[in-house]
């Protein structure tokens, strides 16, 4: 299912002479092996030799750990000695654990705001980075610069920014009147909002990917639209957005996946506690605490497997929904 979604998204036959060959050679190796000629087999050996680092990588760093994680999720394991089999025990515990519910709620709250907001901010930045003005290189650098600031430093900055006694945030609030000593980081909802705001400054990476998509939209399409009398808004809605939809899909999926894994900012802002009132206890933080704080590696694995399944389900769901919205027709060049 993933494969079909991806197949549609990434035109593999970018190189014209290879497009036909690439798809013609499509059948999986097991079925095709008998029909492979001598040169085919030599090509296959050469190709596999070049991608062998990736093959080793996927076996050691993906296939093995995913499998072992699933096994560990059915055990009790402290990291020492051998894991003891507990069957579905960890999953039963997880579904009854109030902190799992709490951290899931926090993570969903974060994702529902940060993902759409992040897409809008990134798109606005990309449009700005694509302006036809002299100083555009400066804007590109400036918009990307916060993405270079590590999460821990950004968190330090926000701690200073949002300080109830001397932060800039309170000064701004004071302009509008009553804002004296609002402590955003001391409020269970406020701390989430602070972390969401912080994440928006890192939109530069997604913006660059949007920018790449924008530069692939043929200029002639806009010219044609302008001749037909389409204004800027109409052009954006009818040309830019549809032609950008594959890139949008990519950013949406990576955004959702990143939101489910939100960790570092919350860890640093709350000094690893997730407080106040577990308001910044995101799913990954709770997972981390169980694994490396309480040495409950089996339970943490069960949480990881659940996160994995939810992430996978969401990615597939987005792919499935996207078939109606994502446009692959115009070969941008």
């Amino acid at each position: 299912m993933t494969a079909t979604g991806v197949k549609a998204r990434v035109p593999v036959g970018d190189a014209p002479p290879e497009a036909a060959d690439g798809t013609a050679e499509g059948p999986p190796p097991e079925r095709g092996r008998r029909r492979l000629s001598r040169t085919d087999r030599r090509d296959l050996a050469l190709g596999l030799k070049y991608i062998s680092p990736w093959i080793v990588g996927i076996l050691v760093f993906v296939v093995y750990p995913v499998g072992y994680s699933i096994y560990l999720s059915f055990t009790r394991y402290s990291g020492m000695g051998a894991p003891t089999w507990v069957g579905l025990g960890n999953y039963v515990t997880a579904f009854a654990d109030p902190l799992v519910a709490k951290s899931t709620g926090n993570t969903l709250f974060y994702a529902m705001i940060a993902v759409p907001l992040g897409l809008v901010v990134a798109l606005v930045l990309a449009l700005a980075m694509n302006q036809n003005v002299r100083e555009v290189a400066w804007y590109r650098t400036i918009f990307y610069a916060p993405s270079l600031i590590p999460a821990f430093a950004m968190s330090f900055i926000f701690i200073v920014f949002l300080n109830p006694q001397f932060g800039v945030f309170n000064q701004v609030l004071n302009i509008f009147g009553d804002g004296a000593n609002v402590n955003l980081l001391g409020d269970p909802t406020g701390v989430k909002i602070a972390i969401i705001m912080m994440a928006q400054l890192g939109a530069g990476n997604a913006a660059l990917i949007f920018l790449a998509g924008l530069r692939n939209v043929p200029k002639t399409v806009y010219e044609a639209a302008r001749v037909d009398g389409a204004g800027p808004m109409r052009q954006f809605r009818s040309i830019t957005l549809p032609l950008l939809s594959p890139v949008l899909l990519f950013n949406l999926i990576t955004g959702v996946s990143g939101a489910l894994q939100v960790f570092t900012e919350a860890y640093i802002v709350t000094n690893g506690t997730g407080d106040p009132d577990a308001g910044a206890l995101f799913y990954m933080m709770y997972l981390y605490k169980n694994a490396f704080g309480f040495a409950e590696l089996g339970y943490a694995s069960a949480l990881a497997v659940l996160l994995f399944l939810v992430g996978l389900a969401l990615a597939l769901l987005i792919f499935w929904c996207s078939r109606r919205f994502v446009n692959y027709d115009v070969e941008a060049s």
Partner: protein
Amino acid sequence: MSTTLRTESPRNRRSAARSVDADQLNRRADGTRRPWYSSVIARVVMVVLSVIFLLPLYWMVISSLKSDEELAKFPPTFIPQSWQFGNFVDAVSAMPFLQFFMNSAIITVSVVIFSVISNFVVAYGFACLKWPGRDLVFYLVIATLFLPFPVTLIPMFDMWARLGLVNTMFPLIIPAMFGSAFYVFLLRQFLLQIPRDMLDAARIDGAREWTILWRLVFPTAKPALTTVAIFAAVASWNDFMGPLIYLQDESVQTLSIGLQSFRSVHAQDVSFNQLMAASFLVILPLLILFFVFQRHFIRGITIGGFK
């Protein structure tokens, strides 16, 4: 008649030329005129956005230069009243900054070198070689791009622990030797733009793939490789979770985890202006790297392109 014609036409030409000069920026690529306000609005929006996006960096710099008293003052000052360059000295001497810096540098440089080489070779296999089943395998690469990775966290920790490599830099460096889906994808898109004829000509001349890879394709792919190098450098330099899990001894800790643990353990010894000064020193190498390679970086990511 003839005199008027003669005097008029050059003037027309000159004024036309002048107006083109003045107008050039107000025209679109196809030569149609933008409304006069569009560039003003665009510029205002971009300047406002720039201020917002520069603010954190600016605040970091000025906070690092303020004295303790000034940092705790309300309302906050936007320009330090007295410039405390001593904060930088204090920050570096209050914690094992150089140690952290060296550790970060060793990890980042190794990761960048290994990432560039491994992803380049793998991407070459997907973009410049033709072999049966190649595109199917490439879909697998793409699919792993969307896997939520925390699921591998605990088994990986377990594996490195069994190998006795926790508290060494290896768990953070070795994975870079095996390529990563995003970089492979990025490089492949770029390599596909290299004309096939060029490669085939080299092959007919009897060049071996390994020679073509390094002598012919490597120089062409430099913008994309720069992009991968910068992405890898930033990710590795700023990584928090990896060092948090694998580097527990101060002697092997990197800047990101070192500064955080220093803040939580020695909260009373280190003030925020020192943390800001230290943080600024952490970002400085990245900022320099980005400014120097900015053009290649943007080109690398936009030319190969996401489609």
